[in-house]
């Protein structure tokens, strides 16, 4: 793999092909492996928003979500030679993002154990990391959420990891059950069961929003 994919000296031929926007993810990865910086840039352009959104819904922290989204692409970049096309690229990148998110979530739990604030949290809040109020202007207009959205976000973030990942992939990202099962390395039945359980847990918390 060429190490100057993101550098200025791009291959003109491949840049033209990428510009068509018709290449599949696998073709883009192959092109990126062969040294096309625009191919990798196209991959980034396709997935940066979904991955950022997925991570944001998982962590309920925008800055951390952006940071982990970048880390996800860095890992894709440096592991491109080891990437096999037996899985959809989306499965591959969501799996990386999921692993990073779970790892980050566990780090937060460990930090929370060392924090005195953990002593005063209720059981219901135990899954949610305390986040101080961010007084800076929001980086994106889409982040402005009403009270209902914030309640739903907190309810999702409070779910156990094993339920949080599949419900976000299914209901936020719109991924198929098969793909979610592949991302989480679970059976289809288990995946469906977890999504169903996640919805049941959310129903208890969001009961007043249901008609």
């Amino acid at each position, binding site marked *: 793999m060429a190490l100057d994919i993101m550098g200025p000296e791009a291959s003109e031929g491949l840049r033209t092909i990428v510009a068509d926007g018709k290449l599949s993810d696998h073709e883009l990865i192959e092109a990126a492996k062969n040294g096309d910086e625009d191919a990798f*840039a196209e991959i*980034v352009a396709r997935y940066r928003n979904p991955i950022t959104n997925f991570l944001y819904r998982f962590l309920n922290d925008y800055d951390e979500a*952006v940071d982990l*989204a*970048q880390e996800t692409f860095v890992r894709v970049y440096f592991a491109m030679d080891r990437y096999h096309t037996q899985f959809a690229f989306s499965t591959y990148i969501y799996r990386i993002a999921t692993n990073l998110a779970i790892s980050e979530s566990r780090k937060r739990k460990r930090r929370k154990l060392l924090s005195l604030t953990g002593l005063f949290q209720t059981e219901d809040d135990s899954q949610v990391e305390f986040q101080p109020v961010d007084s800076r202007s929001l980086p994106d207009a*889409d982040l402005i*959420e009403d009270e209902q959205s914030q309640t739903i976000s907190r309810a999702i973030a409070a779910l156990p990891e094993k339920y949080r990942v599949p419900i976000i992939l299914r209901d936020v990202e719109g991924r198929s059950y098969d793909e979610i099962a592949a991302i989480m390395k679970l059976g289809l039945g288990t995946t469906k069961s977890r999504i169903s359980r996640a*919805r049941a847990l959310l129903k208890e918390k969001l009961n007043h*929003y*249901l008609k």
Partner: protein
Amino acid sequence: MKDEMNTNFSADADDQISGLIAGLPRVSAPADFDLRLRGRIARQRSAVNTGFRMPAALTYALGLGVVLVAFGLFGLAYIYSGKVGDVPEVTTAKTAPIITTAPPTMTTPSLPPTSNTVVPPQSALTASSEMPAARKPDTATVQTHMAANTVKATASPAPTVEAVADAALRTAKKICPAGIPCAEPNSTPEMSAQSPVDNPHDAKEVLAVLGVNAAFAGGKMLIGSVNAGSIAENAGLKAGDVVQSINDQAVNEGAKFAGSFKASVVRVLREGKVIGIAIGK
């Protein structure tokens, strides 16, 4: 019918939950996402190309190794510092008070240093300074661990002295610390013809204390075996060694060692060479 309604309600509620979640506003990556990503990749690339990164497992293993070595050295230092494996004294102090009768020197039982012994009135033990030199062998010496109060008392012939000493002991009040046995002052001390010094050990007993099983063979003290983990084994004594001396005192069949002493150097003949082995160092 009821089940069907419940199922429908459940499916409806699931749809509503899905709708609520799907209705959440989507966030986008910031505008400088690509720029920051380029910088991040460039930094990691230069780190990969130029920097040597020690694998995490190796780092942990090295740390663990350092800790183990430190503990090992500490343990060895502790063992060889003498806190472990000190040579016990060979002593005959199992029996306590012994009063010799001929010569009439009397030694009171060894009392604990902290015991408050009330020494009998000096008047009972007449001053020895007035005693003729020729009479000194008949002097009865009363010793206590209140060394400053050691009084050499005299006087008269042996039976009288004994009687005085006995009387003094009977009237003495003793306060002994808890846990430390005190000799009963009013009891009559055991009489023996031997003093501790007169009851020495032979070489075999001395070596047995160190953990050596040895016996004379052909006039030589030959070590048959050394107890595992014993002081002797730690010091380096081995089966087959011929013990020549202990604390520079030659070992032979008639050799006797003082009743209370501490073996510090044992010289042995091993493979034709005489080796001095320090005990408990």
